């Protein structure tokens, strides 16, 4: 985040100027929204602007609503995530990005009060089907969390855990190979190849996060969900992970939550903007960051709130 602020300081001032002039034209065209607060605008949103749907959807969400007890956290979200695409989810804090992301591999099942309505399909299969087993689902849809959370076990065991419990490999040599290739893909192999038996918790924060990524890709998931994977990392570690995401996107479908516009712009193909639980806009990343369709998106990416 640090770099974001420094880099964006000067341009933002200019952008705000430019965008103020633009805004007048926009508000004219959008006379209805003239003097309403962002909250009011967000609450009146019923349809996502831009192109939320895609041709070859790996994950297809339709009318997804999520509730914590009585409180609704996500409202009527329709979104497709296309195969081998990186979709960035951005939005102000508390707007429901994590909640939404966690629906995609049913991690919300672990929260008693959380209830999900609507349909989410993975390759045409409803993942909220009552007969569906979450264990294989989570093997197909892996998750990397905001805070690096390696197991208090050795580096090797961390990566080998997934393949072991899913019975993906039987021989030790095969397991070694999976561990090595996963660590290589996560860009960690060179740093840890001589100390695979030392505890994973003894690595630096950035290394731990890459270890967690290696652990996730070791079970060869089809989709990887990342919830602010770089929020605890320095710019160098962040750059490494971003590079990694770009590489992984050739084989995996990725949904990433981020608070860094730069990061979203760098790694994603499409960007989805959330506000107060509503999916406001989905578009090609370039379009979102240069010429967003919705005024809330614009306000957010130019740093007027959030």
């Amino acid at each position, binding site marked *: 985040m640090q770099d974001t602020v420094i880099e964006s300081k000067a341009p933002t001032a200019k952008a705000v100027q430019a965008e103020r002039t633009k805004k007048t034209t926009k508000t004219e065209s959008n006379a209805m929204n003239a003097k309403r607060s962002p909250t009011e605008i967000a609450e009146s949103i019923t349809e996502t602007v831009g192109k939320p749907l895609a041709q070859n959807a790996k994950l297809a969400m339709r009318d997804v609503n999520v509730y914590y007890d009585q409180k609704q956290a996500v409202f009527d979200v329709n979104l497709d995530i296309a195969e081998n695409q990186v979709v960035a989810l951005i939005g102000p804090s508390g707007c429901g990005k994590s909640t939404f992301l966690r629906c995609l*591999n049913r*991690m919300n099942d*672990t929260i*008693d009060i959380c209830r999900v309505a609507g349909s989410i399909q993975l390759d045409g299969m409803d993942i909220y089907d009552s007969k569906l087993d*979450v*264990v*294989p*689902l*989570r*093997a197909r849809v*892996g*998750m990397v*969390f905001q*805070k690096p*959370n*390696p*197991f*208090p076990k050795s580096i090797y065991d961390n990566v080998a*855990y*997934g393949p072991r*419990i*899913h019975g993906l490999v039987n021989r030790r040599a095969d397991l070694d190979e999976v561990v090595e290739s996963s660590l290589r893909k996560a860009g960690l192999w060179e740093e840890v190849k001589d100390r695979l038996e030392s*505890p994973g*918790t003894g690595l630096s924060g950035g290394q731990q996060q890459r270890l*967690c990524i290696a*652990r*996730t890709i070791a*079970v060869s998931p089809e989709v990887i969900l990342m919830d602010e994977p770089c929020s605890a990392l320095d710019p160098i570690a962040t750059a490494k992970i971003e590079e990694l995401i770009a590489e992984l996107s050739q084989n995996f479908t990725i949904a990433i939550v981020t608070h860094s516009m730069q990061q979203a712009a760098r790694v994603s193909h499409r960007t989805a903007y959330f506000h107060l639980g509503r999916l406001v806009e989905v578009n090609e990343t370039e379009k979102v960051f240069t010429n967003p369709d919705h005024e809330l998106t614009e306000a957010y990416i130019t740093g007027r709130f959030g």
Partner: protein
Amino acid sequence: MTSPNNSKPLSKQAALVQKNLAKRYASERRFKAYGLASVLFGLCALLVLFVEIFGGGLGGFKTTQVALTLELDSDVLEVYDATNPDEILSGNYTGVIRNALKERFPDAAGRKEKRALYSMISVGATYDLRDQLAKDPDLLDTSIDVWVLADDDVDTYYKSLSSVPYAERMSDKQQQWVQNLIDQQEIRTIFNTRFFTGGDSSEPEMAGIRGAIMGSLLTMMVTLLLSFPVGVAAAIYLEEYAPKNRLTDFVEVNINNLAAVPSIIFGLLGLAIFINLFEMPRSIPLVGGIVLTLMTLPTIIISSRAAVKAVPPSIREAALGIGASKMQMILHHVLPLAMPGMLTGAIIGMAQALGETAPLLMIGMVAFIMDVPGAINDPATVMPVQIFLWSDSPERAFVEKTSAAIMVLLMFLMFMNAMAVLLRKRLERRW
């Protein structure tokens, strides 16, 4: 820029802060002193306890012996074949010892004085002699110089000579004889092995703690085997599986209530259910262990739940996130991380159970039992009950036995607590 010295006058704010500083530091020092005083008070109490017990109890680990020359005459003994167990068993060893005493102190005249003389040697001496002869049959019809066990009155008197002599139960004549033995260096104290190898006895010089130790170990074994698995399983169910509703709240409140129930109530429960209803025998470690299980379960459940709760949610999420099932998450990640806390709770619960008396009194483990128990259905007593029994005995010599038994019990408790600390250190992992 100003130099960093104090030449610049302080601002009003800073001056105010400065003024209050002394007061703040003083109260900080007071705060620290209160804590230190509390710790010192605790240490003093502990020290007094230790000095008191160790001062009174060290003598319990020693026993007094008298040197005698015994004539193992087969006619006196009425043992003609020392390899025959029956004959050995029925031998008249008392006669041999009495003869030796008469020989040693010919001045004992009259029945009363003779009885006084004979009473100076413990009946334990005859058992020792029998065992010695059984082990070495060649000793028959020879004369041997041995140290024989003195009676508890002699023992108490002799040990007290170095400080305040306690001669209430010793006649003048007996005191003279002891003095004579001292002059000839024919009386000594040595380490009391019998204390650690024997069961209880009505004779203080023969009483040992072994029976109570074994009883305690057997009872603890039953308690541990029952309460640890049950407690851990209950804790895991309550933390990981139980839905959060009225019923589980009710269960939780009552587990906490159970932890506060006076232990004697559990004894009554054991008496009513296991002994009266199921007609299990009294005084056995099995029943004692079950009763103590009821008592320690809440402690183990509460500490195990705390340990399970302390496992960071991020670890659970990590496991679930790559597709571990709930059971795999629990077995592979939650249990190993919670284990140190669970073990600590279990050991503290066991230490509590080890020192428990009241519930065991209710189920009859307070009986006078001389045999060392070997199984969980042998009649037995436990260490704290043994202490209670001895402290209640009229013989003076039991006073130091009581202290000695307390020391043994404390040793066990310290050992268990040290184990708890060690286990925690070893198993604790960073995350």
